[in-house]
């Protein structure tokens, strides 16, 4: 099995390097095909591993080589494939294979084609490191690696100011979180003496709660960064500057879920500190609502989907926080499928509309792009959590879980959010595919994407539809390592009432969305309508003024302070004082050199003066010596 593990892990790396060879050369198909092929190999290998685990249930654990070893610290490159990581591997390899193939078509005309695939495969490799590593340090490698790749991919079109800005923003915000994570790792090391998961978690069992709490908090700060939880969420929406496949792979399916994975992975830690868990859950619930609200009004397809991702991550954190780790992981998986699908669909649309993102300028695309419409609609249905698609099984359990755990506020929030989700997803569906064909006004000539792109998307489609049915098998498998918490309501009736209630609520939301946006009266908003003037709309469209305030109250002061430090303090105080000392010495020379007037009698006067000084000193001292006793008396009188 080790062999398959290595194949799964390293074939993306090989692919990335292969594409890198063509980095500076004009684009060639091969630079895209080979990495995709290698990724599919990796997918197959992962599948074999999955099968192995499903059948035997035994964990594959290898230690490749030592990385760092000094003092008591020992960090190997160790990889573990257990029920949790294999799930992630499946998700990652599957989605990224799809995205790779898709991207061959999508990036067809981009001159950075080769570079793109190099980065993309590199990302997959880092992501696999992240999920497969058997210690926190290895996790951190992947953690930073995916950050790096996302930097490279968000800023892929580096000639665009907005893209590079978004890339740096994403990187730096993640860095802030990573600091927290680093501290968490230090805490783990100095308290448990190791960074290996097994050893560390074993040792945690008998540590006192305060330390554990700190560990939990700091590690979670790291998770907040990657999973773009409030207040570190702004980068995710801006990250949509990257090519759409990137958004699909990194900013929907895989990287952003790393935070959830971290919490799930360290469930044994969080199990010991339920208070932190509750905090995580509440934050998750808040983000779910918060993000959904911003998605309601946004006029950029990708941003809307991004916000929905954000809110779904909120759901996952709720689950993880409440200790329903397997649920969180399950939703992570399901979400990966339908959200990636959604993004790729959006990609098709953009392709068709020459990268136009405003749904109000589209409409009625359903006629020309049937396949895309079907896919996106199904994905949205899944996202909305309608029976029997994936979302229903993964999302509704979370809501139930909140109910069962008696966190009713969270429950309510999640319920409302489910409604909002349904609304905004179908808002864009309606705006894009139904109603008047507004794009004609703007002279677009939409066309369906290449066949093979659609084919490539199909696995996701299938999974988005059927993933729910895998729930029980999945439960069986994953609870081997995760706490098996069943969420069954006490009475069957309440269960049915709740479920059906939720369904109806959601469906109503969908219908409302259609009624509002699918009709022919929709115009391209010009800022005149009453709604757009309303405070709430302004608040939402400006994302609660959070990016603005960051710019205003963090970035600008930092820039100004730096300049002050340089121009004022470093130059005018620190350096000036050094030169000042030198200046004083030199100046003394300039002033006193006049003493050497060159006039003989002055010189003689100096000599005599010197003698006189010496003599007077002598006299004073002589007298002092002679009248030593009297002086002592006087001094003592003076109290010296």
């Amino acid at each position, binding site marked *: 099995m080790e062999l398959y593990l290595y194949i799964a892990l390293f074939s993306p790396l090989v692919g990335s390097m292969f594409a890198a060879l063509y980095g500076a050369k004009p684009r060639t198909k091969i630079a895209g095909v080979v990495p995709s092929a290698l990724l599919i190999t990796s997918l197959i290998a992962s599948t074999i591993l999955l099968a192995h685990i499903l059948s035997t249930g035994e964990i594959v654990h290898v230690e490749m080589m030592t990385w760092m070893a000094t003092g008591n610290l020992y960090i190997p490159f160790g990889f573990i494939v257990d029920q949790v990581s294999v799930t992630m591997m499946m998700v990652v390899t599957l989605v990224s294979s799809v995205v790779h193939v898709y991207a061959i078509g999508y990036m067809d005309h981009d001159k950075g084609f080769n570079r793109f695939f190099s980065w993309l495969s590199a990302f997959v490799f880092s992501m696999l490191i992240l999920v497969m590593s058997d210690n926190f340090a290895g996790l951190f490698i992947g953690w930073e690696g995916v950050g790096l790749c996302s930097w490279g991919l968000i800023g892929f079109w580096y000639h665009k100011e907005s893209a590079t800005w978004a890339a740096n923003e994403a*990187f730096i915000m993640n860095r802030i979180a990573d600091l927290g994570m680093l501290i968490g790792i230090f805490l783990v090391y100095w308290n448990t003496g190791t960074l290996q998961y097994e050893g560390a978690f074993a040792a945690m069992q008998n540590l006192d709660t305060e330390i554990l709490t700190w560990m939990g908090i700091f590690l979670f700060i790291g998770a907040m960064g990657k999973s773009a939880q409030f207040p570190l969420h702004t980068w995710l929406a801006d990250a949509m500057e990257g090519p759409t496949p990137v958004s699909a792979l990194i900013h929907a399916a895989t990287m952003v879920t790393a935070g959830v994975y971290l919490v799930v992975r360290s469930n044994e830690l969080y199990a010991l500190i339920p208070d932190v868990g509750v905090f995580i859950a509440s934050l998750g619930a808040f983000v779910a609502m918060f993000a959904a609200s911003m998605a309601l009004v946004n006029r950029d397809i990708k941003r809307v989907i991004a916000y929905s991702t954000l809110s779904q991550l909120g759901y996952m954190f709720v689950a993880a926080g409440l200790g329903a780790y397997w649920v969180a992981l399950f939703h992570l998986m399901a979400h990966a499928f339908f959200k990636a699908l959604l993004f790729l669909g959006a990609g098709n649309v953009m392709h068709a509309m020459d990268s136009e993102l405003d749904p109000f300028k589209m409409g009625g695309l359903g006629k020309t792009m049937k396949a895309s419409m079907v896919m996106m609609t199904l994905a949205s249905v899944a996202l909305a959590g309608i029976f029997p698609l994936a979302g229903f099984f993964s999302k509704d359990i979370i809501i139930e879980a909140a109910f069962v755990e008696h966190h009713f506020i969270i429950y309510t929030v999640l319920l409302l959010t489910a409604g909002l989700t349904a609304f905004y997803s179908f808002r864009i569906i309606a705006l894009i595919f139904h109603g008047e064909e507004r794009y004609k006004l703007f002279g677009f000539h939409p066309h369906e994407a290449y066949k093979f792109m659609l084919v490539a998307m199909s696995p996701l489609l299938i999974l988005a539809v059927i993933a729910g049915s895998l729930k029980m098998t999945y439960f069986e498998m994953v609870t081997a390592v995760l706490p098996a918490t069943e969420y069954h309501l006490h009475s069957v009736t309440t269960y049915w009432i709740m479920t059906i209630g939720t369904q109806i609520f959601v469906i109503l939301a969908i219908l409302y969305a259609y009624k509002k946006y699918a009709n022919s009266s929709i115009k391209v908003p010009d800022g005149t309508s009453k709604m757009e003037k309303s405070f709430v709309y302004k608040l939402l469209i400006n994302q609660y003024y959070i990016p603005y305030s960051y710019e205003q109250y963090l970035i600008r002061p930092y820039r100004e302070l730096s300049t002050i430090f340089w*121009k004022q303090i470093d130059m005018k105080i620190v350096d000036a004082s050094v030169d000042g000392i030198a200046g004083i010495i030199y100046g003394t020379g300039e002033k006193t050199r006049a003493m050497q007037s060159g006039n003989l009698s002055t010189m003689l006067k100096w000599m005599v003066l010197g003698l006189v000084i010496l003599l007077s000193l002598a006299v004073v001292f002589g007298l002092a010596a002679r009248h030593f006793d009297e002086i002592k008396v006087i001094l003592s009188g003076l109290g010296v």
Partner: protein
Amino acid sequence: MLDHILSILIFFPALAAVLGFMIDKNSIRAYGVSVAAIEFVLSLFLWFSFDSSISGMQFMEQIPLIPSFGINYILGVDGISLFIVILAAFFTMIGIASLTDTKNVKNMIITLLFLQMTMAGVFVALDAIVFYIFWELSLVPMLYIIGAWGGPLRIYASVKFFLYTFAGSLVMLVGMLFMAYFYYQATGQWSFAILDWYRLILPETFQLWLFVAFFIGFAIKVPMFPFHTWLPYAHGQAPTIGSVILAAILLKMGTYAFIRFSLPLFPDASVYFMFPIAIISIIMIVYTAMIAYAQEDVKQVVAYSSVSHMGVIILGTFALNVEGITGSIFLMIAHGVVSGALFLLVGVIYERRHTKMMSEFGGLAHVMPRYATIFGLMLMASVGMPLTINFVGEFLSLLGFYQQSHILTLLAGIAIVVGAIYMLAAYKKMFFGELTNEKNKNLPDVSKRELVALIPLSILTIVLGIYPTPILKPINNSVESIVQLMHDKSITEEAKTRIPNLAASKGIEITRTSMKEAH
């Protein structure tokens, strides 16, 4: 051969430099490269014949200079110094190899060879006075390099660099004389041999004073805030090769000296001053990083960034535990490689455009993709991306200091954020965006000669980031012995608790090589 390999390492370049005077101007470059290459091979040979299981000094040599005054020519190398020596040889080699057409290149190469001698000498000297000799001598070639090949402000910069360091080290000299005097009082005979001094246990008050005296000398060299202002001038004015050597090796003399002198000689004082120094290094890290962010000249960005990294090194050193010190030593090497490479890269663009102003650039990634890639790699290394050489050092340094203070480490950890900020900003200004400036429209990408220097550095950056063990292991052994020595020597309670006792925990017996065993 092996008995005198260190002397050969020191004096071979000097001899070669003297002979260099009679080499013809056109063939001097080949001469310089071959000499440096031989030197590098020698240093590698040193590494291969180095027994990394021994924690003490190896290849020791001793020749009496002024026995009546306890000054002897004692050399030796251990895990701590070994790799810096190799690094010095390496950088001299690629420095000369990548030397672009400078005016009277002959003097330059001869100067560089002399510099190589002093650098080798500083790191293998085991007698305080011999150490001091090379320490001071190293200033002269650098003074000449900056002053003769530098920019418009070169004379101001070079003299400032020289006098500042010179003044500092004179204070250090007084400290050394005191140390020798105390040794004389204790044993009745003069000795400047560091290994003898190691055996000397001083009362705390003496330690404090001497620590300060040494500190002034080292801190100016490092340079530590607020003694750092000579560095931007020196880097700003120096020619590329000067900056490379200065950043890669000369700055390391200070940090190395901290580990060689301050810690083992004054364990209690080190503990006493741990927190003040930690705070200074945090100021270095954050404050200079912010200054770097404000710069308009890319070379200044790199210059200030190395002050910032030096902060991390100092922090790791004063973690006073194996993890931290090992990390800081590794970071010395890492920072040597990375900052050296960055200065080379800045030199590349300066060669083409004769300006270092970032406002002049922008969108360079369009015309110079290879250059952009290598620069990006080094940038990521410099911000401490895992699997690059820098990360190992920074991680271990911070990890080490975390044992001493949580909150200070948290503050110091800001390094990874602010570092990313200025580096990415600089990279964005230089390489991203549309290609606006006409002058940049058809810049040639990196040439063969430049790649000769850059490729090995890039490989080093990655390989040592993935597999640092061959370097970490020898360092670790020597550091363990030093830490144990500090623990045994320390007299105050706090020091005993702060400095881990390895003998208890891991049963490490320190093997202290003494003069006698040397022959």
